């Protein structure tokens, strides 16, 4: 706040260009100090490890599994083009796409409903309700789902009673149920933020001009909430692509996904270079997709 005031003040009073330059430099320094802790933290604990991952991806696997940096090569990167890796990657991709679509389908109406509650207090309570699951560990919650879905679980019993479904545990629907549950909040929150600040007078204007409810939604509400859709989709898609706990615990680990495959490389296979190159490749693809996504959607943001 004080910075802002001072900056405005200096703009008004600055007649001497030297003084102005000094003031600007002072502001830059101050900004640097404010950002320094976060900057240092991110460099040390985020950028540096990432660089290490990239460096290791060029190492070779020693006979005992120790990564050998001196014998560097691109074998781990060329291995990414093997059919096995492609099969695993494609499956993980579709799983992530499907889960993102599912979250959007369930999350949008829900976010819309919350955002259109008239009382602020009601909206707050509903938002807290969305966040409550985060108060406990994801692994614990996934194991809780296992109890709901196993033979004695309430969900299975209900399904058997109504004759709609049998045991769900260790099936594909169980995996999607778990993923939807886990990542829905990441979709609802940005959607809520986007819909809540929407200018409703535009919708009213549309209706005044004889647009049907559906048309108004399609041509006004939906485009205006697009930033929320994009943000939510990215937030859901990225972790879904690396999903590991849910397919393992609820799906019975019956299909290899990228997450499990990477874990294997760092564990039993003791092939850190290959694990690093898969991780690096995912990161690059993610970055490219995100940049593309924002560029294409950015103009309407």
């Amino acid at each position, binding site marked *: 706040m004080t910075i802002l005031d001072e900056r405005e003040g200096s703009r008004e009073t600055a007649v001497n260009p030297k003084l102005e330059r000094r003031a600007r430099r002072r502001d830059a320094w101050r900004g640097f100090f404010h950002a320094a802790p976060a900057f240092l933290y991110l460099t040390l604990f985020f950028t540096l490890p990432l660089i290490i991952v990239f460096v290791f991806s060029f190492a070779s696997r020693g006979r005992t599994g120790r990564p050998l940096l001196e014998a560097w090569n691109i074998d781990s990167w060329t291995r990414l083009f093997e059919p096995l890796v492609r099969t695993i990657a494609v499956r993980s991709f579709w799983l992530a796409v499907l889960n993102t679509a599912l979250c959007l389908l369930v999350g949008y109406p829900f976010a819309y409903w919350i955002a259109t509650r008239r009382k602020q207090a009601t909206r707050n309570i509903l938002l807290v309700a969305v966040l409550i699951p985060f108060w406990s560990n994801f692994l614990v919650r996934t194991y809780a789902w296992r109890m709901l879905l196993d033979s004695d679980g309430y969900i299975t019993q209900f399904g058997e009673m109504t004759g709609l479904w049998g045991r769900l545990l260790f099936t594909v629907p169980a995996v999607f149920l778990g993923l939807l549950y886990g990542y829905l909040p990441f979709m609802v929150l940005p959607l809520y933020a986007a819909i809540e600040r929407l200018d409703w007078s535009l919708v009213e204007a549309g209706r005044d001009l004889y647009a049907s409810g559906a048309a108004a939604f399609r041509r006004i509400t939906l485009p205006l909430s697009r930033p929320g859709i994009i943000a939510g989709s990215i937030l859901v898609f990225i972790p879904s692509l690396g999903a590991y706990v849910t397919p393992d615990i609820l799906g019975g680990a019956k299909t290899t996904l990228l997450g499990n495959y990477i874990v294997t*490389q760092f564990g039993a296979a003791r092939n850190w270079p290959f694990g690093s190159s898969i991780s690096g490749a995912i990161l690059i693809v993610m970055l490219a997709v995100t940049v593309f996504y924002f560029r294409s959607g950015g103009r309407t943001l």
Partner: protein
Amino acid sequence: MKRILILVAAVALVAAACGDSTDETTTTAAAGATTAAPGTTAEPGTTAPPATEPPPAGPQALADACEAGQTDGDLNLYNWTEYLPYGAAAEDGEVDDLKEAFEAEYGVNLVITEYESNEAMLAQIDAGVPYDLVVPSDYMVTVMKNAGLLLKLNKAAVPNMANIDPAFSNPPYDAGNEFSAPYQWGTTGIGFSYDVIDDADGISWGVIFDPAMNADYAGQISLLDDERETMGAALKYLGYSLNTTNEDEVNEAADLIAATKANLAAFISAGFEDLLVQGETVVAQGWNGDFLGAYDAASTDDYDAYEEFGYAVPIEGGAAWVDTMAIPATAEHPCSALAFINFMLDAENGATLTNYTYYASPNLASQEFIWEEILEDPSIYPPAEMLQDGSLEFFSDLGDFTNMYSDAYARAKS
């Protein structure tokens, strides 16, 4: 003024941060020096090397100079979880507290850190964390000794090596137990419900891999999620060695696993025994100690889980594994480590360990102190000839062929 204050504060912070880190390194270095000191000062009293001789170089020389019963400081033990009876766990298991006993006998502290996989332990040792004693499984002993990460055992300091069962005195993973002393051993086989399998004798891996045999309970079967163990079961069923490096055999096993997937509930390595006891599965591949532990836990005063569930190594054979005690090359207290190995190989202490873990002891002398219910249980102590005729095999490290197994297994699951 404010600006200067901020600047000073920031500089102070940075300086403090740097100061901290340098302090830390110097203190750890100092700690290393002081902890090393008792060993070297203790030595003149016992071995008294002449002052003219150059000081012994490296930890191997230090270890070789240790005498039976000698210690050189607190022991940093890096062990699997729940793998040594002490504290409340020992009380629950109604066995002696071995940590307390060791500390009382040798007058040094036993500091225990725990891990959950061989690979996690390897990474720590490879990074140079100075543990004095680790408990690697068979194949990991090979990996670690080939990488130069282990010290040779100074057997003069471990007279109780004589207690080891001859079946474990020359294991394939470490010829002549040069680098390792066996700690516990067990088997990988099949845990099952008597609802679907009447008799533990003559059980075949076919109950998992043969669709004709498991038609009644398809979908209620679990395999371990471990490329060596899971592939190993398939290889055994097909009549091959579980250490085969023949690509055709490995691929055949992978195809078998892929074909079996439809009849499985899950691939699961942690909690397979719970799924069995809870009734989610009726047949499960797993480790004997885990099954028996779960049957024990499920039993109550008026319910005997052993009547409902069993465990057996199939007729085609299975995997036998050995966890061992070994001294990392980074050890700072090798004499204490050797003292601990000797302590654990003692007849009574070895029996205490087995009475706690329900895993078989490679310590022949300890048999007279092991509870009868354990000793006479064929699921803990399988017939001795199974180890000799090759039906029970140890996993050996595959070196460059490790990738072949990982890929075949990943393919089977994709």
